[in-house]
């Protein structure tokens, strides 16, 4: 009997890491590029995808000029697959899907194109995929973050960055719950959730408690969905031990007040040489392998690679693309 294969084979064992966060300038692209370069230096095959739809610049951090094909070419159909848009870099094993120069079109990616992109990311024949996401909490950014296993929030030890980290995580939580509500056709809860969660940190608990009292089955579905969201945290640009400990504290506060299991991967010390490398259009990691920041990158990568507890349940709408 001949078995028909519908569509391309989906590789199930791809590791997809998404680097995101609420605030700009925290070093998301730096972390993405450094993780990619580190894995490639270990003879792993890596694809970096510049999914910062509004302001792509990951190629610059790798010292590469913007050129075609890029993400825009895939989304407009000029290149048939995402695999075709992944171009070689000067670093063995590392390929990059550059961000598009056609910002206006890409930044407002429609739902269909987003799902097509998400599906193709999972179909890449490369075991390690790293998504560099943009700042903010647009649905596109959140959906890319939630589709990864795990999503990594990069923040810095400043009040603005911490505040935006919590806002970003709240947006992720609301997005996860909304997707599950839509999927299970749970009625009239979205507005109630928005009203309650906006109020204060304990209101998330309040929302679940009242839901459990009125409808235990729905409450259980949504609470399990929430517990399946397990982001990681990286504290970047730390200047002393106090900043390193701050990351631990943030993860603890998130666990207690936002009810999600956040893992603190570690801190990357501030290094002036990052700026110098960027000014010279050279990637930081290969030239500063002995620096404290590079060592931190290696430890974070190891922590990620050997962690088996990420059994993230991707929200249903993201998991089942119709494209």
């Amino acid at each position, binding site marked *: 009997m001949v078995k028909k294969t519908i569509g391309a084979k989906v590789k199930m064992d791809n590791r997809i890491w998404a680097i995101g966060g609420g605030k700009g300038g925290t070093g998301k692209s730096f972390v993405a590029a450094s993780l990619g370069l580190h894995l490639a230096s270990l003879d792993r095959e890596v694809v970096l995808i510049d999914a910062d739809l509004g302001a792509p610049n990951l190629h610059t951090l790798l010292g590469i000029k913007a050129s075609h094909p890029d993400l825009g070419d895939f989304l407009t159909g000029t290149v048939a697959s995402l695999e075709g848009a992944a171009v070689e870099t000067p670093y063995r094993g590392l390929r990059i899907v550059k961000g598009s120069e056609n910002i206006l079109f890409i930044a407002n990616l429609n739902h269909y194109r987003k799902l097509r992109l998400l599906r193709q990311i999972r179909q890449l024949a490369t075991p390690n995929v790293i998504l560099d996401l943009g700042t903010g909490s647009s649905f596109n950014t959140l959906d890319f973050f939630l589709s990864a296993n795990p999503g990594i929030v990069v923040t810095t030890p400043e*009040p603005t960055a911490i505040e935006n980290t919590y806002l970003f995580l709240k947006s992720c939580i609301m997005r996860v719950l909304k997707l599950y509500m839509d999927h299970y056709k749970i009625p009239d809860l979205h507005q109630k959730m928005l009203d309650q969660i906006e109020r204060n940190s304990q209101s998330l608990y309040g929302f679940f*408690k009242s839901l*459990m009292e009125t409808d235990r089955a729905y409450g259980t579905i949504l609470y399990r969905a929430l517990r399946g969201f397990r982001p990681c945290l990286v504290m970047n640009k730390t200047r002393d031990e106090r900043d390193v*400990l701050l990351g631990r*504290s943030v993860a603890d506060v998130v666990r207690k007040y936002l009810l999600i299991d956040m893992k603190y991967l570690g801190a990357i010390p501030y290094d002036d040489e990052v700026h110098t490398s960027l000014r010279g259009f050279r990637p930081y990691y290969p030239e500063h392998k002995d620096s404290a920041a590079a060592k931190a990158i290696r430890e974070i990568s190891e922590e990620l690679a050997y962690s088996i507890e990420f059994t993230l349940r991707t929200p249903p709408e993201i998991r089942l693309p119709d494209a």
Partner: protein
Amino acid sequence: MLKKIEDWNYYELLSVERTASQDEIWESYQAALTTYRDGSLALYGLVTEAERGLILERIQEAFQTLRDPEKRSEYDLALLRHAPYFPPKAAFRKSVGKLEIEDAPARKTLWTRIKRFFVKNP
């Protein structure tokens, strides 16, 4: 299991296992004090002053109970009556060809890191 902070048990509050040693409890207590101290950056934009007061009170209560072996065993028994406890399995870490644990240099303990910045007269 959905729980409000007031319902978290002492071990959950201090983020330690029920098998934790006195040193681990001390370290976690100090870490919790730094997290929930007045003006802590980790609370900015999420936790109100009233909530901070409440959790600090609970953390003090947790430490006072767990540091005293007699009170701790009484508390453990009370917890066991409420629900069974299964200690966690050892974390799996892929081997890289040698025993990393034995070769690894001793890491600075959490307490030595905390006291450098947050404790005036350790």
